[in-house]
Structures are given as C-alpha cells and as structure tokens.
C-alpha cells in the first residue's frame, strides 16, 4: 500500500517536472560567419520563447554534410533542425526525409526570392527555409583595370577576362591575373567548373542520363580553364578553394576572382581586406551562352521527418529566416553583415543598399539563375552547378580529382575527361540508371 503511494507520488512529481521542462531543439549547422552570428543572437529567440532551449552542433561543411546525411539516412533522429543546401533539399524532400514547412502568414513566403523558393521546393511545397543565398559573380580590381585601360562592363565574356588577366599578370610584383578554385570536391572546384561548362554549352547528363564528359563543350571549357589558370593564375591553384583564394585576394594578390557572391562582403570589408576600396563587381563571365554561367546555392534550415518537435522547430526556423531577424542583425552588427540572397525586402532596404555596394550585382546574379533550366541542351536534372541526384556527390568528387590533376599538369585534359567519363558511367551503372 505504502509502496503504491510512493509510486503514485513519484509519477506525479515526474509528470510535473516534465510539464515545466523546456523542449530542447538540437540544431546542426555550418561553421561560417552568418551561422555563428545566428548562434550569438539566438538568446533573443529563447527570451521570446522561454519553453524552448536551443542546443547547437556546429561543424565544418564537409563534416556537417556527412553527419546529417548519415543521421537522416539511418533515421538516427539526432537533430531537430538541420542546415542543408540546395543540393540535398530536392532529393531528400522527394524521398520523404523532410517535413514540409508551414511558416504561417506573418512569415511572408512571397517575399522570398523566386529562385531560392523554387530551388528549395518539391512540387510547390517548401521543404527548407533559406537562411542565406548566393550566386557567383566576377570580382576584380578596379585600380588595375584603370591602369591597364580595360573596361569590363556588367556582362564580361571569358575572352575579355583572359585578355585582362594577361595584361595585369605580374608574378614578380606578387600579382596574379586571375584566381579560381582548383581544390577537388563537388562543392569546391566542380561548382566553378560546372558553371564554366554550362556557359560553353555543356551539361552533365543528356536526357538518357548518359554522362557527357567527353563532349566538345567539356573539352573546350576544361582546355580553357587549365590554360587560363596555368598561365595567369597563382602557383598551387590545385589546392585552392574559397577560403584560400579569399586570403590571397584580401592580401592584394589576385587581379580577378570568379566565386560566390558572399565573398563580396568580405573583400570590401576594410577590417580584413587590404584592397577593400579598390574592388568592383560584374556578372559571371559567359562564353557561348549565358545559361548557367552563374551558380545558385543556399544554406537553408529544414526539419527531418523523424523529429518529434516539429512545431517548436518550425517556430525557430520562422524566426531565423524572417525579415525581422535580418533587421536584428542589421541593427546589432551593421547592415553590411546581414545574411543576403534570400528576401526581396532586403534588397529594397535603403540602409542595406547604402552599406553594400555589391547588392545590385548580387541580386541580378541570383535572379538570373534557374536551377530548372541551366543548360543549353535539355537536361534531365535540376541544379545549376550540380545535378540533384544522390549519385552526384560521388561523381563530382571523382571528376573533381581528375580536374585538379589536369590543372596540376599530372595528366592531359583528354585523359582526365576520359577517366571522369568512366567514373561517372561506373556510378550511374551501379545506381541502376540503365536497366
């Protein structure tokens, strides 16, 4: 009898405890500037929602991708909110691994940039909310252009870029004509190379899913890339990706750079860049076609279908990707540092336009990218600088390795493309595309 009373009491206490405990949301995110800022500002959210506690797991991009992919594929349920990219969202959404978002009316979904909204939706349903978005563009040194008497305009061609690089390339003075990504990886060198291939009129797969790596556009594009970077690039290009080149550009060693629009805010920040007052911006260069010449990427927040705390997770996502959050960052850290590339209202904000001289070029680049139509011949896949199919990571890595070998002069372009074609066919055959 006594024993039962104790049990009942314990149960009651336990229940009471549970009803007062806050819900804990585990959030996996990338360790780049904007996300770290989100963590710093998240106490604001916790103040407004005392019943929700946030727990952060912050990882480097590659590691994050491995962790969240294994977690979601094995239904591990470690995370309530995941930071994923535009590559994963359509694939996982289609597989039913994500919960569709219902942000509510105050969120104003129509304020999201159409390119971002489309890229993160499957069948018209939004599966991830964009935290910040980017495209790619050409960044160059205005002072060097003036000295060389070169006018690049807003829509340069690759031929113009090459001429300009030749004019300013001066390794003795520590200035290299152009810096481009060369480090192997589907999100590293292949992101840039794919946009170059697109503008040369190439594609990853034809409508029968056959890899097109030995087609003429690929050959033209890769020959051009290896030649340009070999002649007018810095030494060690085959190990350079975004961060390495950012350091070089900030130290004043690069004349030009084609990369993520997000770089614009770093290289024009006098706190970290020696050349902050000398940079200018143009759209990504084109060759044969403007289609797919600049990429489209977003880091976005999504809720895995295994999460039991979807309602609370939705609250946090609505807060972190809202117009109000962008204003909060603007007020606390200055308008030059807000997460860009997600909302129309950001680009209509006079404070932001004053602080960010790259805003117009960035918005034009994002608006011109269309993941559903980014190659000259028709393609069966979605994505500008990637193909949103599960096999693409493996293929992109294998091809990226070959491209860096060609860039380093270890193999010829033809041999590298042949090996790439083989690797791509192997993966596609294994995945059962040709039954």
């Amino acid at each position: 009898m006594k024993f039962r009373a104790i049990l009942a009491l314990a149960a009651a206490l336990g229940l009471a405890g549970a009803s007062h405990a806050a819900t804990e949301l585990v959030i996996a995110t990338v360790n780049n500037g904007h996300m770290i800022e989100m963590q710093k500002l998240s106490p604001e959210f916790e103040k407004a929602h005392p019943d929700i506690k946030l727990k952060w797991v912050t990882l480097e991009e590659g590691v994050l991708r491995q962790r969240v992919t294994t977690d979601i594929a094995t239904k591990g349920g470690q995370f309530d909110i995941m930071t994923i990219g535009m590559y994963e969202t359509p694939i996982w959404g289609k597989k039913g691994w994500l919960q569709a978002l219902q942000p509510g009316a105050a969120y104003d979904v129509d304020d999201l940039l159409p390119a971002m909204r489309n890229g993160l939706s499957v069948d018209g349903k939004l599966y991830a909310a964009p935290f910040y978005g980017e495209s790619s563009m050409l960044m160059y040194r205005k002072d060097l252009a003036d000295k060389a008497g070169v006018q690049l305009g807003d829509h340069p061609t690759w031929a113009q870029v090459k001429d300009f690089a030749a004019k300013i390339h001066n390794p003795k003075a520590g200035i290299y004509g152009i810096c481009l990504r060369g480090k192997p990886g589907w999100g590293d060198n292949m992101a840039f190379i794919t946009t170059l291939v697109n503008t040369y009129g190439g594609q990853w797969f034809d409508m029968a899913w056959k890899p097109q790596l030995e087609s003429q556009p690929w050959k033209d594009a890769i020959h051009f890339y290896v030649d340009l970077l070999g002649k007018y690039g810095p030494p060690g290009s085959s190990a350079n990706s975004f961060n390495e080149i950012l350091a070089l550009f900030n130290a004043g060693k690069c004349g030009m750079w084609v990369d993520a629009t997000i770089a614009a805010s770093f290289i024009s920040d006098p706190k970290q860049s020696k050349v902050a007052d000398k940079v200018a911006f143009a759209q990504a260069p084109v060759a044969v076609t403007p289609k797919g010449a600049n990429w489209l990427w977003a880091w976005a927040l999504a809720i895995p279908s295994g999460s039991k705390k979807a309602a609370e997770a939705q609250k946090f996502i609505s807060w972190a990707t809202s117009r109000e959050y962008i204003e909060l960052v603007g007020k606390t850290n200055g308008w030059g540092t807000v997460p860009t590339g997600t909302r129309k209202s950001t680009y209509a904000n006079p404070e932001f336009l004053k602080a960010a001289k790259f805003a117009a070029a960035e918005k034009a680049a994002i608006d011109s990218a269309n993941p559903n139509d980014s190659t000259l011949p028709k393609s069966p896949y979605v994505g500008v600088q990637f193909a949103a199919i599960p096999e693409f990571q493996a293929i992109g890595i294998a091809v990226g390795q070959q491209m860096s070998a060609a860039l380093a002069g270890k193999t010829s372009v033809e041999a590298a493309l042949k090996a790439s074609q083989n690797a791509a066919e192997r993966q596609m055959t294994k995945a059962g595309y040709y039954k």
Partner: protein
Amino acid sequence: MNRLLPRALLAPAVVTLFLWMIVPLLMTIYFSLIRYNLLQPEISGFAGLENYQFFLTDPSFTAAVLNTLMLLGSVIVITVVGGVALALLIDEPFPGRSLVRILLISPFFVMPTVNALLWKHMMMNPIYGVLAQVWRFFGAQPVDWLTDVPLFSVIIMIAWQWLPFATLIFMTALQSMNREQLEAARMDGASYLQQLRYMVLPHLGRSIAVVVMIEMIFLMSVFAEIFTTTGGGPGDASTNVAFLIFKQALLNFDAGVASAGALFAVVLANIAAVFLIRMIGKNLD
C-alpha cells in the same frame, strides 16, 4: 581440475576481447555482401561479390595500394635511419642536452591534423611558406610541394611526426648499452663505423623491430594528413587505401563498398605483417 580454475577465471576477459573483435568483423563482412547505400535505401538485397568487384576495379585502386606501401616503406626507413642517427648524437653528454632532447621529442605531441596544417600553410605554401622564402632567397623558383610532389610532401609530414618516437625508443635503448664492451672495442682499435656495425646496431635490433612494428600498425591507416592537405589529389597521386575507403563510406555513402574495402585493408595489413614478422624474426634471437 587445477588447470580448469585459472582458465575459468581467465574466460570472461578472453571472451570479452574475442567478442570485441569478432562482432564488428562479422558485421563488416555482412555489410560487404549486401547492397547498402545510405542514399538509396530502396536498392537493397544480397549483392554477392559485387561490392568487392566495384572496390577492386576502382580506377584509383592500384594507385592507392602502391601509395600505401610507398608511404609505409619510406616513413619507416626515414624514421629508423634518422632516429638511430639522432639517438647516437644525443647519447653523448653535452651542455644543454636535456633541452635538446625535449625539443626533439616535441613534434610527437602535435596532433596529426595540426601537423598537416602547419606544414601545408607555414612551410609548403608556394607563395608565403617558409620553404618558398628559402628558395627565393637563393634565387630559385619555389617548389609547389602539394601539387608537384604530393605523396612526398605527405611522407615528409608523417616522417617529421614519427621521427621523435623512433628517437625516443633508440635513445633509451642506447642507455642500456654496455659501456665496458665499447671501451674494450675501442682499445682493440675498432673504428667508429666498426663499433656501430658490430656492437651498437645488434644491440638496437630489438628496438628497431619494435619501432617498425608499431609504425606499421599506425601508418597503414594514415588519414588526417592526407585529408587536410591534398584531399587525396591531385588526381589520385596521394590517395591511400584508408582514404579510398573514406571516399566510399562518407563521400559516396556506400556502406557496402566501404565494408568490402575495409576487409581488403585487413587482408593487406596481414600480408604486410607476415612479411615483416618473418624479416624481423630472423634478426631476433
């Protein structure tokens, strides 16, 4: 009966250790025989030897095996030769010897990833690295280490990290060297090289064997240095078997193929071990 008791007492520990080894091994064997790609849960079922075939026909496979052996061999040779030389140098007393010893040992306490980053940026960067500055000082064109000689660069990094370990072992072994015998040899007019050949090296035989064995176990699975510096590239110039398995498991998310690769690595390690034990076994009494 009196034999049974100690065995019964030993049994729990032995069984635990055995399970510790056999369960993961059996799971790996099971995974290697099924179609198991994390990103394609809809494709499943028994795959037979398909995964093994896929791993062994990987275009980078031959390069990876050769690179693994090359890395293993080079680092072992460099650390054993260098380690003996250093140990002999700091064996004789001289002012400041203890400080020099501490400095010599310190690289071993640097984490592999940190070691790799240190070499990649501080030393080997072709634009602002220390080595590039040295080359420029002599008016030469700086070497682009990680692009032109990727495997050699990785060998340098790992040798630098393991040299202190070898030095430490040989240093302690030399301290137990019989000084009177050396004295006697010198009285009989043996030159330094003769002393080295007939007295010191035989005395070090056992510790050399230990160094080779331990390094082999650890260097088979070198990964951090490659991951942080070259990413296996350019091409597959610095991909070793461990990195190839990583590519399958965590970049392609193909647990089946990765398990097949892991089992292959186990076989490779055993082959290398058999050869080494034979070689070293001859030298030990």
